[in-house]
């Protein structure tokens, strides 16, 4: 078995149609999001083309391959071979989009880190919903960075390496500044106020915070990121 070569495609010469018509049916079935009725195929091909013959041929051709041509509810579709289903299960993950609140929180953390929860709430002007920070931490984009050296010693938050990787950034300092957001058209010049929380210096604020003990490793790499 292991020594077997590529799958033999049974080739059955049939005079009923041109090669291009078979290729056309193959491409149409491949690209269509839904199973295709034979009438739909006929509409795209020259009148008189024997679509059924083409479909039967394709079905036979693909029979031994990783993909089969199947008839479902009177329509035709390519489907991966059922014996290979075990391969497909791990293939897809469910994409989920972040809520607006989570995105804004993430953006504020990215720009103002290290930042406390109270500061995030101050910038957003609303209190942080339960679970927003937890979610960002669970995703792995936000981490605890340390404690602010102020009364109450609140925990500060920052972004992770996974955050940089996901957003294609080399370092946090690569995030465009307000001027550049204006330049890229994301922000209107007329609406840009002054820096909200001294963001220009936020990245140098590291000295203000105590690093959480168990987090020392990440902190060091993070520090290297900053120029």
């Amino acid at each position, binding site marked *: 078995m292991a020594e077997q070569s590529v799958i033999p495609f049974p080739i059955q010469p049939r005079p009923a149609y041109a090669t291009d018509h078979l290729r056309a049916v193959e491409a149409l079935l491949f690209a269509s999001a839904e199973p295709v009725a034979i009438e739909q195929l006929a509409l795209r091909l020259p009148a008189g083309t024997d679509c059924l013959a083409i479909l039967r041929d394709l079905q036979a051709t693909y029979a031994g391959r990783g993909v089969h041509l199947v008839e479902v509810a009177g329509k035709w579709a390519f489907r991966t071979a059922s014996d290979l289903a075990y391969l497909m299960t791990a293939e*897809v993950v469910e994409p989920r989009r972040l809520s607006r609140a989570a995105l804004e929180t993430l953006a504020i953390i990215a720009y103002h880190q290290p930042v406390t929860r109270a500061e995030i709430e101050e910038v957003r002007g609303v209190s942080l919903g339960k679970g927003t920070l937890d979610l960002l931490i669970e995703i792995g984009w936000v981490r605890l960075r340390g404690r602010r050296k102020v009364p109450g010693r609140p925990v500060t938050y920052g972004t992770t390496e996974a955050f940089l990787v996901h957003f294609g950034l080399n370092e946090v300092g690569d995030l465009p500044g307000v001027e550049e957001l204006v330049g890229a058209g994301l922000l209107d010049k007329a609406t840009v106020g002054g820096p909200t929380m001294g963001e220009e210096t936020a990245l140098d604020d590291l000295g203000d915070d105590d690093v959480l003990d168990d987090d020392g490793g990440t902190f060091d790499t993070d520090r290297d990121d900053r120029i």
Partner: protein
Amino acid sequence: MTGAASPDLWDAPPPEAPSETLVVDVDGFEGPLDLLLDLARTQKVDLARISVLALAEQYLAFVERSRLQRLELAGDYLVMAAWLAYLKSRLLLPEPAPEEGPSGEELAAALAFRLQRLQAMRAAAAKLMERDRLGRTVFGRGAPETRIERRSAWQATLYDLLSAYAAQRRQKVGVAYQPKRRVVWSLVDARAILQRMIGRIADWTPLEVFLSPYLAVADTRRTALASSFGASLELAKEGRIELRQTMAFGPLYLRSETGRSARG
């Protein structure tokens, strides 16, 4: 298929509103370099062998013509005109001493290079759009076989992130435009203020005088007047002050009851 479609793309008007571009569109040209490139085409030679002097003269003539037609030219065009006039003089006059910067020929070559580069990028853009593009001429799997697994991949693009931050900044600024909260004097406030001031004044004094520091501010004028009038009626009823008005809509005079009785 794309070959036929790409001219449309080239000719398509920019989707941005005109006000959004910094370019003043002169006969459909996008900036002075674009105009120069178009003028250069009339010479019908390789851009590398173009006569920059002739080009400069054509450009200056164009600018002159626009001026006569009272067309407002964007600053970019005028800066280029000034530079080309300078270049023209450098090309026509004998070469100065070498330490005086690049020669006229060098400047001309630099301009020719910029034109070539812009043209090359345009050609590249056209070639790019003529490629077999996904969703235009070639197609991927229409029905990907997805078996939803419960692991969720959180998706957010950098664009999302930056937009969120930009939106945040906009909101922040929006606060500044909110109407100011109106200052309202409660009756209690007005009464406290009146009592505090009236204790020292025994003679008939117009209400406006008591309130002069508050009436000067337009925001508080109305509320200060209304509330202190109400408060003064209350105080008069309690016998703490006296009120007098000599004519309708005339000034309202107040004096302290205690002040009067103290004087006898």
